[in-house]
């Protein structure tokens, strides 16, 4: 018996923790690579007022619209049975929907979801310029509201009153009815957060400037960016999803550890 065990001890060249270490390294590398790839720059480098007035941009936008959007939204953006009218939707709406990859839709479903963007930033802005030229609507936000320099405390209060019921108090998102959901707000560009508040995309309600002023919107964005950057004092956040994730963790990992210890304590030693 001792001989066979000795043999087993010698032939096991790999350390028992090697598998765990390998998996951990794999996860870290994948995670880091993913973060690198998913960094999106949504800041408009162009001078928007001149860009949106430029006839050539509007014409280019109209061409892109005719080729990619008109099937559902109609040739004159007047809307069809498959898509709403975009007259008066404004540049902010287009920049949000196209800039986050939600539009063009992959399929008709409960909710249009974030995908890899289909248009370059310039093309997105040309589309926005075209839709904005049809009728007045919410315009792209001023850069001074997007730099995260607002009042984090006010932003937190406003976020908890107006946003947290759907988007979760930590901005981690949450479920809605019939397959819809409020997306997580971490990693979303400030421009897109601002545009979503102003335009109320899909089933999100509108928070116009009379309800939440541009400065207050800037406070909310600052609060969200603060949440993203601050380290979690409580340790592992488990996605900040609350009792479901925490319960699952403690029932499986916590109780699993307790059971493993119990088995070990009561098992007969060899």
């Amino acid at each position: 018996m001792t001989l066979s065990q000795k043999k087993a001890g010698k032939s096991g060249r790999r350390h028992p923790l090697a598998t765990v270490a390998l998996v951990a390294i794999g996860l870290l590398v994948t995670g880091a690579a993913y973060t690198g790839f998913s960094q999106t720059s949504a800041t408009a480098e162009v001078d928007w007022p001149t860009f949106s007035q430029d006839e050539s941009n509007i014409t280019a936008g109209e061409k892109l619209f005719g080729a990619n959007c008109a099937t559902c939204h109609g040739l004159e953006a007047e809307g069809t049975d498959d898509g709403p009218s975009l007259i008066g939707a404004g540049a902010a709406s287009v920049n949000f929907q196209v800039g986050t990859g939600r539009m063009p839709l992959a399929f008709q479903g409960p909710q249009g979801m974030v995908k890899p963007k289909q248009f370059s930033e310039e093309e997105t802005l040309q589309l926005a310029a075209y839709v904005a030229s049809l009728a007045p609507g919410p315009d792209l936000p001023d850069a001074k509201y997007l730099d995260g320099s607002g009042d984090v405390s006010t932003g937190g209060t406003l976020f908890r009153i107006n946003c947290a019921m759907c988007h979760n108090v930590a901005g981690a998102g949450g479920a809605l009815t019939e397959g819809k959901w409020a997306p997580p707000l971490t990693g979303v560009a400030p421009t897109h957060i601002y545009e979503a508040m102003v335009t109320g995309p899909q089933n999100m309600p509108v928070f116009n400037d009379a309800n939440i002023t541009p400065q207050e919107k800037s406070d909310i964005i600052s609060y969200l960016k603060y949440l993203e950057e601050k380290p979690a004092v409580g340790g592992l956040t488990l996605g900040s999803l609350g009792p479901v994730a925490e319960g699952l963790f403690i029932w499986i990992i916590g109780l699993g550890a307790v059971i493993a210890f119990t088995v070990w304590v009561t098992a007969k030693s060899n």
Partner: protein
Amino acid sequence: MADEATSNSKAVANAHSHGEAGASAGTAVIASDAVQNPGLPPHRKRVTDLNPKRAKRAERTVYTLFYISVAGSLGSMLAYMFFPIESGELWQIRLSTLFIGLGMALALLAIGVGAVHWGKALMADHESIDVRHPVASDEETREASSEIFKIADEESGFTRRTLVRNSLLGALIAFPIPGITLLRGLAPQDQDPVTLLKHTLWDKGVRLARDHGGAAVGAPIRAAEVTIGSVFHVVPENLANAEDVLNEKAKAIVLLMRLDPSDLKVSEERKDWSYDGIVAYSKVCTHVGCPVALNEQHTHHLLCPCHQSQFDVSDEAKVVFGPAKRPLPQLPITVDDEGYLVAQSDFHEPVGPSFWERLK
């Protein structure tokens, strides 16, 4: 011996006859192929008993674990010294608590694991049987104790002096009553709780103001500010002057939405309760009172996050799904001379979950 015991006491008899052939007469079935008691499996020695090298190794493991525990305790102390929370920066708090906690966890866990491993691998490995004895005391002790009770009863007169006994029982029953009465003190003293539950701060002409969190009341809302698809979280403007602000707020919170008027289904008696597609509903769920505020712009559904009740805003907040039994109460609103939204009256029914006197 077994026969003698049977005649004395059944409990003792059963215990004595266990494992013997003498089951009580009449119930015994003599099975010819009864299962034989296989006895205990042979004792298997541990590797630490057979191989002194393994024993030595187990010993090393145990004391190493105890030294690790010492290291954990000291490490925890060092962590407190080297990761102080001085600037109040969040990452400092995190480092401090993380390393102090890790040290303490290691200290206690290593003691436990070491002790168990010591017991399992090194301490003497005997197998023995403890025979179970009957639970009941012997006859003599039982008679003696029942005698004590009899004497106590005679000397105290517990069964003889019935008035004394019954008055004592009465006193014991009456004793908890003050505790129950004191519960009344948890309810408001000078007001009827039922009236409090039935009425909110809303009244004719009270303006709808923005909720600014806690006891703060924001600016009143003009009808023109509520564009289609908008949602406002609303409190009564007079909330700031209320005596018990948070309790009053809990009853009076309202969700204000503007729909395309053509989407609204309005019944005859509520025709003038909304203003040009602007509707106001109580935010307190009629199920158990969570704030219902998950508003979907296009389906016009309000979702309660606690138990997934859904209300259809376009159809007078009727329940379309979930455990809620009643629609959310609607606040009748209109517009005053200056264009601000005002309430026409209080809610026409009590807000929130059911209570006994709700319909009285």
